[in-house]
């Protein structure tokens, strides 16, 4: 119906699509491509001397940068755990939230509120909790768990960041799954019950497969966001103690703005973006193949 006029539909396509594309080009793609030029230079980020050095930055990154390697391992471990735990907990909460609780709306808000508050403030609040709050809790309860150095011990700091990361974002993913669950047709579940398919069995055989489209989306968003984890670490530990919680984005940030190696930092981010692309594309392909039509 709409294809009668070829030019008309091309203009129409442009009118609809171009504003967004132009904005995205302006704010993200073009600046990113521009900064990629620096990946082949030696530049401190401000000076007027920009020296072209070819692929030297990439060679250094791939052969001798142990910091970047450690940051990569940290980021991958964090992402794996954060993605799995966040999504499992979010699905669990979502299933519970579809039950007819009296204060259901209130619970939803409670779990979602941490997501509303800015990450800088979240980091601040938890720093406050881990240090001052736990001291008082220890004094009151005597439980040694509150005496542990949750931000000062290299291993515990990882779990603290993971915990706060999940605490902050789980409400958002819960919302995605709640909506997914609501679109699972009730008659299908009823039919399943009649067939004797109830409880956990029903959840795994019926609900979960039908939830697959939500899972695709939630996984995509949580993987991309976890790989880019920055703000929580910046405010909670600043990568410490002793670089134990340095994520790749922290490493890039430090390289660019603390070590004044802007050229090298952009080389790192280019490699990192390619990595994120590969991981997310594989994930979307994989989960899409598991989706079923309701």
């Amino acid at each position, binding site marked *: 119906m709409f294809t009668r006029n070829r030019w008309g539909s091309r203009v129409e396509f442009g009118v609809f699509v171009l504003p967004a594309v132009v904005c995205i080009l302006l704010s993200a793609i073009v600046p990113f491509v521009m900064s990629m030029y620096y990946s082949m230079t030696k530049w401190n980020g401000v000076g007027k001397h920009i020296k072209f050095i070819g692929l030297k930055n990439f060679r250094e990154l791939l052969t001798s940068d142990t910091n970047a390697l450690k940051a990569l391992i940290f980021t991958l471990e964090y992402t794996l755990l954060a993605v799995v735990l966040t999504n499992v907990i979010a699905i669990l909460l979502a299933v519970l939230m579809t039950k007819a609780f009296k204060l259901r*709306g209130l619970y939803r808000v409670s779990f979602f509120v941490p997501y*509303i508050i800015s990450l800088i403030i979240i980091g601040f609040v938890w720093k406050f909790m881990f240090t001052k709050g736990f001291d008082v809790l220890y004094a009151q309860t005597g439980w040694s768990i509150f005496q542990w150095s949750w931000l000062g011990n290299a291993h515990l700091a990882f779990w603290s960041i993971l915990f706060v990361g999940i605490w902050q974002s789980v409400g958002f993913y819960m919302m995605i799954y709640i909506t997914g669950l609501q679109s699972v047709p009730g008659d299908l579940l009823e039919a399943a019950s009649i067939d004797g398919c109830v409880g956990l069995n029903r959840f795994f055989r019926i609900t979960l497969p039908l939830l697959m489209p939500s899972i695709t989306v939630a996984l995509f968003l949580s993987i991309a966001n976890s790989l880019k984890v920055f703000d929580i670490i910046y405010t909670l530990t600043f990568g410490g103690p002793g670089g134990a919680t340095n994520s790749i984005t922290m490493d890039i940030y430090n390289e660019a703005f603390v070590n004044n190696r802007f050229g090298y930092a952009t080389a790192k981010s280019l490699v990192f973006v390619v990595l994120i692309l590969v991981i997310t594309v594989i994930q979307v392909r994989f989960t899409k193949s598991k989706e079923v039509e309701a």
Partner: protein
Amino acid sequence: MTHRNQRRFDVILEIVIAILALLFLYPLFLVVFNSFKTYDQVLTNILALPKSLMLDNYKQVWTLMGYPKLFVNTFFLTLAGVAGIVVFGSMAGYKLSRTKTKLSGFLFFLCIMPMMIPFQSFMITLTKLAKTFHLINSLGGLGVIYWGLGAPLAVFMFHGFVKSLPMELEESGAIDGASRYGVFVRIVFPVMLPVISTVIILNVMWIWNDFLLPLLMLNGKQSTLQLASYKFFGQYKSEWQYALTAVVYTSIPPIAVFLVLQKYIIKGMVAGAVKG
């Protein structure tokens, strides 16, 4: 399981959930409690309840921040940013979803690509570019920058939502004699209301809470609530009681927005995010 057991189980479950929700909010309750205390009281025992509903901090911070003006600034910035993201994002998401060509596929990829790029890696060049286009030093200019940064997620969500809409929707409109644009404005846009509210909420949260971009783009000529409240969190000294009060002040508006729009977000997420 008998019926009575089932009900008892549900009650216990609800109690567990309620406790969990309280624990979840506990750190945020602490923020509110301590905002009613003096500096000494905060330092001596942060877990203690405030002795009285002391409003001194709130009065102090209100003037120290210049709250009313910053509220207006932040509100305008958020409004400008969100409006563009919703309008452009919905148009592109809709069209890219309905057009099945290679170009369309490529443009969709281009649109969502920024979600995979860490912001730190292009912010310096973004400021350069923004300067060239005279977008720095003004709230409006910053709003325009938000359009491009917020559009990827918006396009992604609208794209997914439109996929689930039947084609007949637009065809019926066309039969009524509406133009292609009219069909979008009068028929498609209203149907997308749930996902629109979702996109609004997500972007209000983000822009309202954003710190780095206003810091880089406004150059102190204008300020926002986040910028101002961060002044209380200095590296060399923190005035906890003011900082916490500022947290409460800045967080109230987005929570209010959420409470108002949350009915739609449930519906919006269902339909919007699900069919990626």
